[in-house]
């Protein structure tokens, strides 16, 4: 992990390389995180991957987070890893909610990290975050015809009735 001054240094260099890309940083529990502008996410990831001295070449995890009621509402978290130094760095793209019927968008990082394909599909599936330029952006774990974004916090738990033989007569034609 970069320590707190190291993280500020990375943030400063990143802001010099890609103007206005880093919105904030935090360092807690021994882990460093950069909060970045989602429009610049590819620049940030490319810089961290290719700049000598950074070389975070392994994307170990990619996941979506929702911070409702905090703003910005969504986050896409990239856990980067530098294998030779065994250093991890977390990048969070802070995405605002564009409104009820519009899906938030950001660039796909599959061109940089081929292994992001499935995780990005998972984030799309559960949070409705669209990754521009993803080669095959479909639902991955939920059925393809499913409507809704189940891991958003405003999506209720237990919204679907469970059918047993005892309650089947009460819910006729439930399968439709």
């Amino acid at each position: 992990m970069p320590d707190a001054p190291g993280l500020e240094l990375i943030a400063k260099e990143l802001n010099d390389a890609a103007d206005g890309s880093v919105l904030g940083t935090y360092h807690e529990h021994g882990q460093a995180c950069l909060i970045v502008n989602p429009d610049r996410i590819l620049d940030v990831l490319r810089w961290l991957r290719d700049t000598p001295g950074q070389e975070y070449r392994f994307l170990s995890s990619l996941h979506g987070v929702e911070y409702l009621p905090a703003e910005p509402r969504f986050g896409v978290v990239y856990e980067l890893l530098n294998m030779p130094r065994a250093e991890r760095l977390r990048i969070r793209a802070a995405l605002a909610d564009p409104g009820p019927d519009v899906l938030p968008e950001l660039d796909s990082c599959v061109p940089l990290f081929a292994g992001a394909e499935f995780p990005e599909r998972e984030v799309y599936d559960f949070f409705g975050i669209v990754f521009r330029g993803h080669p095959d952006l479909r639902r991955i774990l939920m059925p393809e015809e499913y409507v809704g974004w189940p891991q958003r916090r405003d999506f209720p738990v237990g919204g679907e009735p469970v059918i047993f033989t005892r309650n089947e007569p009460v819910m006729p034609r439930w399968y439709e």
Partner: protein
Amino acid sequence: MSAHTHRSTPSHGGDILGETGEEVIGTSAIERTAAGDVLEPEEELLTINFGPHHPATHGVLRLLVSLEGEVVRDMKPVVGYVHTGIEKNCEDKSYWKVIPFVERMDYLSYFFNMEAFCGCVERLLELEVPPRAQYLRVLHMELNRLHSHLVWLGTSALDLGAMSMFFYCFRDRDRVLDLFEMSTGQRMHTRYFQVGGVFEDIPVGFAHNLSAFCAEMPSRIDQYEAILNRNEIFLERTRNIGIVPRQRLIDLGVTGPLLRAAGEPWDLRKVTPYEAYRDFEFDIPVGTVGDGYDRYRVRVQEMRESVRIIEQALDGLPEGPWIADDRKVVLPPRDELSTSMEALIHHFKLVTEGFRVPPGEAYYAIESPRGELGCFVVADGSAKPARVHIRDPSFTNLQSLRDMCLNGYIADLIQNLAMLDPILGGIDR
């Protein structure tokens, strides 16, 4: 009309895997099929469903395979058949009730799932785990690794026709489950790890049974290797099959035995030692070629290393408490409840509401039998996690299956899938 610039909607004979939406420029059978071109019968592609209910898919995995004769020209995994929404459900449970939930993701490495989650919450709480608990955790995790690799070895060998291996491996796997039953009360999904330590100390006689098991296990592994290592059929089916370059594996996010078989000595137990792994002496087996045979050898060698770690953990097991002494997080000892009012209050608070975790987020990664198992928890200050995400190694590793299988025979697909060792419960969560 040139067939190569024209793209039809999925017409008869069209190959759905070839539907890319891109202009077709190549002249291979896939691209020509995608272009709606009429091919000679012998060069036509046949798209078949492999699974989801097929004994060789190691779970409910569906593969869409495009075949030219017996050669795999394209392959796409379709997952999600056993998705149960565990991550969503975790947000509705207090922290200590999440533990049995996450265990059920990757049902062959439940101790690892527990460790990933508990370790992550401990990181958020900045809670120190006592040494004896760390040793007990390592001991159970390495037993679990043995158990997981034994199931893998048995089922994979079964896929390749070595049926007796299945029985031998399940015989020894049962001994591991017996040990789990003795120490934790359950054979699978034990809920043994708690935030702050482990639920209970090991019982009298467990050490004896465990050392008897450890004394016998290396000779069992010798027997397995005697069956498979120089078995002509096994060698023919695994050697030089499914090779993916090391850099490509890293790009795809592959970790664990698959990456080590390709020659990358990456093991989180060594590079970022968690729990008590720093105290033990063990080696990281690596392969040279990265074919199915190397993957097999790496895993079998890992079983030997696990036995070594278990023996060291048992020998050096420190005395002392097996769970942290933080009454705001850990249940008070049972005997205190009848004498101490404070203990009773703490017990009541912990059981009814659970403990609260200060706001923050943390990622905690461990080396599961399949690779990097990470847990990401967002805490909002309440007694329930705001978000739990498990980075399951099977999910990411599955992306490399296409690279392994492309332009190989369909029989090798079975072998590649077996050596990939996916656990669909972990993939679908």
